[in-house]
């Protein structure tokens, strides 16, 4: 890719004495390429510009941090931001050990090829299932069968299944980049397999694990269907820690994406919805930059 521009001969089509049909083909195809590029770029600029234009005026520190109150006529997404954080933390606490463990099993332990391909097929299947099906499963399995109700925990467990493939795949990729000689060296010095994984393999693939975290956070922040039905759409501040774990298990509330839905579709308060959209875009931007950085570091290794 580095010097692909060298393949261009630098000759204009006309200069080559082409037949007229070839010239028309060239002109036509070149035109549609440029038209598509212009459409896409215009779309990118319009989308971002429009969202920023509608959302920025209402964005203030108070809106980001305060809890909404009808009495005091305050609008605020403080609770939604906190809820998003709680859901992210609760999901990652469960999914990281599972996902990293599964990746370790696949790259370090598994010897049965059939089992490996079965696990990989299952991972791909999970990655392809749309979020509304996860919402159904979350409602069925966690909210009803396990009687967790519409709570943060039910939502987090559902998200665990949803982001598991992302964590497994990204971690697996980075585990594969750990040189075989590291493993041999460690084992040769007499360490056991688990000791070798803990002291050699995991530390050298920490970038990949971080990347998988970032990607998982991205999916969680963007998710709305699952959270709408399993965590609910309350916009009030939840005091998760007042009664210790008990309130953590019974708390529900909307995350940022759900708050956007509530503003737009339930309350028809579109300007505030756009402000939430701006916050989401900024978060996405930060996540993308972080993932790129971690990815670059991974590549350098």
């Amino acid at each position: 890719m580095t010097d692909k521009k060298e393949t261009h001969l630098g000759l204009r089509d006309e200069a080559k004495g082409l037949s007229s049909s070839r010239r028309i083909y060239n002109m036509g195809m070149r035109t549609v390429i440029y038209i598509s590029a212009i459409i896409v770029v215009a779309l990118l600029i319009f989308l971002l510009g429009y969202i920023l234009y509608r959302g920025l005026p209402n964005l203030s520190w108070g809106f980001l941090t305060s809890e909404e109150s009808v009495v005091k006529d305050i609008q605020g997404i403080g609770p939604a931001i906190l809820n998003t954080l709680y859901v992210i933390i609760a999901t990652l606490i469960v999914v990281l050990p599972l996902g990293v463990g599964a990746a370790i099993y696949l790259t370090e332990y598994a010897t049965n090829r059939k089992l490996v391909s079965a696990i990989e097929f299952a991972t791909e299947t999970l990655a392809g299932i749309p979020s509304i099906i996860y919402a159904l499963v979350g409602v069925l399995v966690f909210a009803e069968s396990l009687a967790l109700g519409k709570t943060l925990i039910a939502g987090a467990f559902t998200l665990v299944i949803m982001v598991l493939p992302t964590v497994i795949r990204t971690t697996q990729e980075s585990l594969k980049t750990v040189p075989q000689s590291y493993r041999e060296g460690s084992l040769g010095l007499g360490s056991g397999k688990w000791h070798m994984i803990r002291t050699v393999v995991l530390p050298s693939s920490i970038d990949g694990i971080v990347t998988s975290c970032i990607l998982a956070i991205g999916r969680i922040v963007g998710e709305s269907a699952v959270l709408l039905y399993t965590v609910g759409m309350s916009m009030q501040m939840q005091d998760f820690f007042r009664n210790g774990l008990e309130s953590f298990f019974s708390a529900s509330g909307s995350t940022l994406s759900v708050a956007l839905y509530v503003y737009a579709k339930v309350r028809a308060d579109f300007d505030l919805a756009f402000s939430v959209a701006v916050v989401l875009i900024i978060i996405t931007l930060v996540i993308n930059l972080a993932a790129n950085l971690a990815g670059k570091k991974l590549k350098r290794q």
Partner: protein
Amino acid sequence: MNEQSLHNSPEEAVEKTSRRKGKAGARPLESVMQLIFFICGFIAIAFVLVITIYLIISGLPAIREIGLVDFLFGTEWASTAEDPKFGILPMILTSIYGTAGAIVIGVPIGFLMAVFLSKVAPRRLANVIRPVVDLLAGIPSIVYGLVGLMVLVPFIRETFNTAAGESLLAAIVVLAIMILPSIISVSETALNAVPKEYEEASLALGATDIETYFRVSAPAAKSGIAAAVVLGVGRAIGEAMAIMMVAGNVANMPDLLSSVRFLTTGIAVELAYSSGLQRQALFSIGLVLFLFIMCINVILNVFLKRDKEG
């Protein structure tokens, strides 16, 4: 890729040594950890099984009660009526039309944009556009729904003079824009992976650069591009929240300018308040959607595998 590492002889050797140690029982922690990792690895399979079994168990009763033919081919969905009707043909057709429409609009533009980014554009311009495309790929789908609701829906209402702009057309455009970033980046990756020698040979034989892109590079990258299309289909057919905001959600037979309900939105709209047979019917819709997605996944796998081998 994994197969490679399995046949790596040093690793096999490593495998044997560690197993011997495990058998000797010198390190009980080792076998405990191996078991834990095995369970972690197995859990993905367990999740798939749980989802499949739950969907089948909770989806079948309603289908049995309504009758498979009435359910799949009934043209009327009136779940809360006195004499409820549960025909999901309008939703199936809407999902198919909506997805097809999004693909017809999104794939050509996305593919041409990928050609632009990969081959035509100056590298500096491409490096500016690419992160923006990635940003759009990461933006939550509900944001697309919001912009569609505020821009597209009024536009359609005024242009076509309809009572409500919420329509299949709005949903198709929103879906097309939503799948665009992933189609662009997957096709671009495929185009970039075409060996440079192919293109050089084509240019040396007298083809112009445009001819080279479309007659040499694109065919060489065709399985990657096909994977992009299938990925787009998967995303479009599975999207719920964005199109719930722009499609109007009335279970009409699909028509470009009328309010429609997709399979996904059919579940999403009623999930919050439904009960009894109505709720069970939602799980049946979920089962149908799940089967659709499984078919798409199998097709995607075939393409990806062929890509890896070729």
